């Protein structure tokens, strides 16, 4: 319990850091980015809205500490201002409409990569010198060397443009509208294949290699020799004794890698014009929509921190040694 509370404190601190970063960036960056934004979009706004945005970015006469306190208050109450590129939709609404797709894409890809990658790593370490152990790591390292977006574009060209097996863009066919029907679900699944597979292909090697290396270290532990001496069946030793211990570092890196997955999803979303916060983030940057950009960044950060916290709770369940200390 104490462990969990300490972690919670840490995540709150991390979130505070990113909020503060968000507060400081537009105020202290050279080149006055906020003025650029105003110059571009002032004509479309009402005076009240301009005043509100001025406050958001510190272009008013309040002292800095006052601005900071107000900003913190706004973040806590979920008020992130109004999107400029999708004027006048509030930022929160724009994000709420998009985040589901990112969770779907990133979650699916992450789940497949983690499960399959770790299984491959376990098997490779168990049968040293076998095909999985000798051929797969270099191959996966090679595939993993390609930039996300490049592979994604290649896959798009090959399977989308040339072969026509998969749709080229978006999360569902134009003309259909989201509904809880089998037809729509399969349409979504079809659109999901290429983006998800490219993320899996690029990230699976890292999981496999890490698991393989931890397993090799674990296999040298005394308790594995003891389990063998006990005459246990190989499958039981492999999973209950070796993999069960070797997965602990993998659980930790699961949380850590989440940030990367979001990043990968961002590029993939751009290539496949897949809706999601990543795609929206880039659109916000291009449209100089700073409120939306900041809102998305904070949301992503909060989500990553939240998942990490959940992972910590799971970790406590998995490693009895943390429970007491």
């Amino acid at each position, binding site marked *: 319990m104490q462990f969990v509370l300490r972690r919670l404190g840490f995540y709150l601190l991390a979130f505070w850091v990113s909020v503060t970063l968000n507060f400081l960036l537009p105020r202290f960056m050279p080149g006055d980015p906020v003025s650029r934004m105003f110059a571009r979009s002032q004509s479309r706004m009402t005076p009240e809205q301009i005043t509100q945005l001025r406050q958001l970015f510190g272009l008013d006469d309040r002292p800095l500490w006052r601005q900071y306190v107000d900003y913190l208050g706004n973040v806590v109450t979920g008020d992130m201002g109004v999107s400029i590129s999708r004027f006048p939709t509030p930022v929160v609404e724009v994000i709420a409409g998009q985040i589901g797709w990112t969770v779907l894409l990133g979650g699916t890809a992450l789940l497949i990569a983690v499960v399959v990658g770790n299984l491959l790593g376990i098997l490779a370490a168990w049968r040293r010198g076998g095909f999985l152990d000798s051929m797969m790591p270099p191959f996966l390292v090679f595939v*993993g060397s390609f930039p996300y977006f490049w592979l994604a574009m290649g896959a798009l060209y090959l399977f989308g443009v040339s072969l026509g097996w998969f749709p080229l863009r978006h999360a569902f066919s134009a003309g259909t509208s989201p509904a809880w029907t089998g037809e729509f679900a399969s349409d979504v699944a079809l659109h999901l294949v290429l983006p998800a597979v490219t993320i899996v292909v690029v990230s699976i090697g890292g999981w496999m290699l890490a698991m393989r*290396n931890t397993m090799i*270290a674990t296999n*040298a532990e*005394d308790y594995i020799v003891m389990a063998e*001496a006990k005459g246990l069946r190989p499958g039981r030793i492999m999973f209950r004794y070796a993999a*069960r211990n070797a997965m602990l570092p993998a659980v930790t890196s699961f949380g*850590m890698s989440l940030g990367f997955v979001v990043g990968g999803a961002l590029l993939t979303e751009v290539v496949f014009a897949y809706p999601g916060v990543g795609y929206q983030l880039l659109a916000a940057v291009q449209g100089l929509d700073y409120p939306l950009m900041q809102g998305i960044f904070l949301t992503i950060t909060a989500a*990553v921190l939240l998942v990490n916290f959940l992972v910590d709770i799971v970790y406590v369940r998995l*490693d009895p040694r943390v429970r007491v200390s």
Partner: protein
Amino acid sequence: MSVTESTSASLGAAPGAGSRPAPNAHLDLASDATPPAGPSGGPLPRRGFVRSLLRNRKATVGVGILALFAALLLLAPLLAPSDPTLITDAGSQPPSAEHLLGTTAKGQDVLALTIWGARSSLAVGFLVGLAATLVGVTVGLAAAYFGKVTDDVLSLVTNVFLLLPGLPLLVVLAAFLPPGTGTVIVVLVVTGWAGAARVLRSLALSIRAKDFVAAATVTGEGAGWVMFRELLPNMASIVMSTFLGTVIFGIGSQAGLEFLGLGDVSVVSWGTNLYWASNDGALMVGAWWAFLPSGLCIALVAFALSLLNYAVDEVTNPRLRVPRRRRAGVHAPGGGTVVSAAAGTATSRASANGHGATPVLEVRDLTVEYRGENRTVVGADRVSFTIGEGEVFGLAGESGCGKSTVAHAIMRLLRAPAVITGGSVRFCGRDVLAMPDDQLRSFRWRDVAMVFQSAMSSLNPVMTIGDQIVDVYTTHERVSRREALRRAADLLELVKIDRSRLRAYPHQLSGGMRQRVVIAMAVALRPRLLIMDEPTTALDVVVQQEIMAQIADLRRELGFAVLFITHDMSLMIELSDRMAVMYGGRFVESAPAATILAEPRHPYTRALMNAFPPLTGPRTELRGLAEGVRFTDIGDLVEVAGGHWVAPHDEPHDAPRDQEVPA
């Protein structure tokens, strides 16, 4: 990535003066003999590191590819003299003699773009790697060296940065900063240093705990000296792999940023090439040639760096290397490697046979080799002995003499590179070395069980001890889980542990309790032979006595035979019926324990006995072997009296005990 785990000394290396003389097997009895170069024992000697790295095939390929790109970078003005950004009206042409890789939609030569693009991409990548590693090293070292509040603050900052999602942060930062290559570098360093710092901090912490660092600190060396002269050189390999990792990160992320249009798109680099290709819709019109080369180049460079990184890992931790298939003895854990030699050809005349009746265990001419890449070390050399029903047979000798090797060989628990190359092991007449896997599994624990050196590490840390005992019952006997649990509880009570502790995890028990659990587990199936490999080494004297009394009780009750392994001669003589003394993989003496106590013949036996103080009587000076004394070419045992076998040695057995002479 870090290499802090250590193999048990007895398995890791077997220095020995076996039949094949090993050139480097200097053994100094006075020191607690640790293997000279365990497979992964801490920091690596630096001299060997670069050489081993160069011999690694992955490293060679990696360096080769990088050299190729370095040449490309330097020779760019010669290879592609024309201005790569020159816009012509020959747009979107497929590869031809004039334009080897075709042209972009704007009519720029793709080959020239790719060659010139290498400059910016590689420069940014390496600069990012250098700067991020530098920051990481400084923060990591400072956190580890200063500890306390400094460490708390620095680790906190590191962990926060590590958690902030990288690419979104990059995008946001890049959006606020004026576009340009400098911005890209700064942004990438800001997001990339934390990973390096985390790895290096934990490594520096583990090195800082070592004695030589403490020594430097005590002698009054300054912080900078200790950090950069004592800690850093021992972290070279990890620093290098961190650097390679951040370069890969730098090149990949730069490409990603530029692809998103967030860099300076007027600079020619692989990332901007891809940006323009995507912007011009190259793929949609089928102009794959505009898109392929830059991506391939990024992948090749990243691949080369990964290979190099991988090679560094393998050199630092040789266990990661893929074992070669052709060598006999590559196997999954669980097999027990046996190379069947023409057993029986070298029949030894000497066997330390005591009883006439069918022995429980009969080991004959057992030979185990540790087959290294460059040399082979003999861990056990033609070892023969028998253990009778209910008998306690002791095996004594210093660390690394091959005691544990013999014990593991009996249960076929040895792993590559250890291979049984000759001899036989018979249990109640059954040939253990010839058993197929399923028979071997049921032989293990049911017939012969083993108590390992350290109870600390021989229990699975994430399973309750109840579940670990239940495993034995459910595997070997067809019993329900409920019944198995009940028996497990009875077993705990047998060793005087409360049955409620079934649900305890190993870390919740004291060292003595853990060892008792292991002993209970060992007798769960009432085996006829129990191998005890230094069962009390890690325990304090009081607990040692309790454990030994416990074992004696169990033996009275269950009547199993024991192979008892220790370097503690007094303990051994007290406990064993017969015993043997082992040195350098060979038996040097074997006799009833009382005989050894009364008249040890071999000088090594005497040295070993003199290395422990008697518990009672006048104070005597302790002596081991004299400095530099080693025995080589130990011959077969010869019977000198009834049941007393000694290896031939130069010195007459009644020579004064304080004048040990090298054989």
